[in-house]
């Protein structure tokens, strides 16, 4: 469960990049975070994960405040950043082991977990070479594997599908669905509206730092009393908010 309470943030004084954001992502749901470029998706995710200091308000992950109990809160999520270029001089296996050590995963479980995840994404055979030699998608896969290694309850993913081939993207979606069945949470940002429509239990649309819609696709259609595609609705919502 992720709870965002009255959060504001400005990079530059006087210009709020996030303006009084309130959002609750419940247990057992996949939440899609949508919005045009520069809307504030990455900024929000950076605040949830503790990368960016919060100006006002607070964020709770499974009830733990990211500002007051950061270490405990950080144990509760796995995070995939928007750029997959992580420590390229490390070998894939070194990176995964590094993360496993950070999360204190015991030998047996780590072997099982790394093999399971990397074989699923078909990068197991590449693990012994430096990540510099990986393609964009392969890097993305390693980072995803790393984030899911210790089986965190909350997944926070910033545009996780970019660069993935259709099969991997499909696999990831399947994994998300399976993950929330056990009462866990998935929060991810995306530009692919089709993914949001088919995969997400609820979506949030943010525009210029303000949350302009939260709810299911059905609710969106009801609210606007139009039976349009998500794409048309999205364009309408983000257009009107001048």
């Amino acid at each position, binding site marked *: 469960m992720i709870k965002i309470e009255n959060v504001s943030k400005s*990079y*530059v*004084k*006087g210009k709020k990049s996030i303006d009084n954001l309130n959002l609750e992502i419940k247990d057992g749901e996949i939440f899609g975070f949508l919005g045009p470029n520069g809307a504030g998706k990455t900024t929000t995710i*950076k605040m949830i*994960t*503790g*990368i*960016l*200091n919060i100006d006002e308000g607070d964020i709770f992950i499974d009830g733990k405040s990211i500002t007051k109990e950061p*270490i*405990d809160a*950080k*144990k509760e999520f796995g*995070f995939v*950043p928007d*750029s997959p*270029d*992580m*420590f390229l*001089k*490390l070998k894939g*296996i*070194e990176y995964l*082991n*590094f*993360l*496993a*050590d*950070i*999360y*204190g*995963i*015991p*030998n047996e479980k*780590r*072997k099982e977990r*790394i093999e399971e995840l990397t074989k699923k994404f078909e990068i*197991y*055979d*590449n*693990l*012994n*070479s*430096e990540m*510099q*030699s990986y393609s964009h998608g392969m890097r993305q896969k390693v980072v995803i594997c790393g984030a899911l290694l210790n089986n965190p309850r909350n997944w926070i993913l910033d545009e996780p599908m970019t660069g993935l081939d259709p099969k991997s993207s499909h696999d990831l979606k399947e994994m998300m669905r399976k993950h929330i069945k056990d009462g866990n949470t998935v929060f991810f940002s995306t530009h692919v509206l089709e993914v949001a429509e088919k995969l997400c239990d609820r979506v949030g649309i943010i525009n210029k730092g303000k949350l302009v819609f939260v709810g299911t696709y059905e609710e969106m259609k009801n609210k606007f009393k139009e039976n349009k595609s998500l794409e048309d609705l999205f364009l309408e919502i983000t257009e009107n908010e001048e």
Partner: protein
Amino acid sequence: MKNKVMVLTKVIFKNSFQNMETAKSTNESKNKKSKSMIILYIFAFIYLAGIIGVFSNGLIKELIAINQEEMFLGLILLAIAIFVLIQTIFSAINLLYYSKDNEYILPLPIKPSEIVAAKTNVLLITEYSIVAILGLIPLTIYGILTSASILYYISMLIVLIAFPIIPVLISSLLVLIVMSFAKFTKNRNRFQLIATLFILVVVFALSFTMNDSTTTPEQMAQMVIKANGLVEMLRGAFPTLGMAIDGLTNVSLENQILNLFLLVVTTTVIYIIYIAVGQKLYLKGAVGNLYSGKKNKKKLDEAKAFKKSTLFKTYVGKEFKILIRNPIFLMQCVLPAILFPILIIVLTFAGMKGEQNGVEMDITSMVTNKTSIYLGVGILCAIQFFLMFIYISATAISRDGQNAVFMKYIPVPLMKQIDYKVFPNIVMTTFMNILTIVMVEYLLKLPIIYLLLITIAGIMMGVLQSYISIIVDLKKPKLEWSSEYAVVKQNMNLIWPVILGLLNITVMIILTVVVSGFINSYIFICIIAVVYLFLTMLVRNYIEKNTIKLFEKIY
């Protein structure tokens, strides 16, 4: 052709320096802040320039007293040549082969000779900034002190512009030759490393053979004693050095003008040859396949691959891996810790040779008071000097670039991570420390207890420096860089270790002069060690109390 070269030069230059500007600052308060930073840097520059100036002033006056002031010209020019030679090797490897702009430039319809010319221009421009400090200031002071005519200043400018070019070309050519073998290799990373080390070995071998020239040991020792010896020896091997010196010396007007003319002509000829050879080597060389990145699928060793280890081991291990696998980081951050003491070994052996042949050069017996307070502090000052070139901690955050945010979302306390990141710096400074001390012991044969105290004080100094440096990096991290080189070279933060180091040396010397009369040297070194320990605790405490604020800029 000229136009293209100029445009390209400008683009490459701007690109490699754009990171120096303070990015991310648009609002006024930040602008003010960066203005005050600029003022600070100007002060730092003046401080550096001042030290060089004071040093030159003293040396020239000494030399004037014994009517040998012209020796100064040779020494300065030699210093410039050596500095530029070594410096260019590093920057040439980066600019010609590792720089990311290659990806954009190589596909453009530009002749290789133009690319080489433009890149060499950038190398030259960069070197002139060093020449400005290392050459312009001392030579101007020389002019003032010897009340030289306007002719001297004009010659000085010509010499300072023309003279550094050939050292740049030599180093750059050396890099081009070695790197052109890269296409025969399969493992590009390993080759880069080996090639880089090879070039360094060549440089040191050269500096060794300079000392080991065919002159008889007696002559050699006398030359070293004359201090000017090296310059005299090099005149033969390095003709433009002689031309530059004679071009500055007022023997006769014709002679001076002739030498300046020769200097400019020689430089031009060598430049033309360099471009002709360089363009062939450059394209033949590694450029084409540098970025192909080989995918070697080595099988995992399943028995070893999934071993758990402690957080400390795994984190520090990761830091070391990234440092060592990156040729640029390795050269700039790790090697100085080893190379500087080794350089002393080389010079020491040269000195020892003189001694063997009966000339009075026995350093061991020259130092009569083995527990002198000045000796101890002197060694500490030398260690502090070497410390200024170990950048591991001063770039610990910036080296991670965009990955620095990683520190903030993993569930490991930031203070712990700082300790881990500082640790490699402490290891390398300690290593450098011990190497230096071993050499000092070999030379001077100090009492072991005194030496031990000095070692401890030196190590404490290294620890203190490690923690202070990381604060500097945290306050002004450089997370968006185009090539690794920008982090370790075009990084204004690195001036801080130098400033603080010089400050430390100054304070230590002043304190020593003040207390030397009435304090035991053992006790004094102990006090120094304790003070460093105390300061380290203070600094670490400061970081611990302010971690959140210190990490504010990393996102």
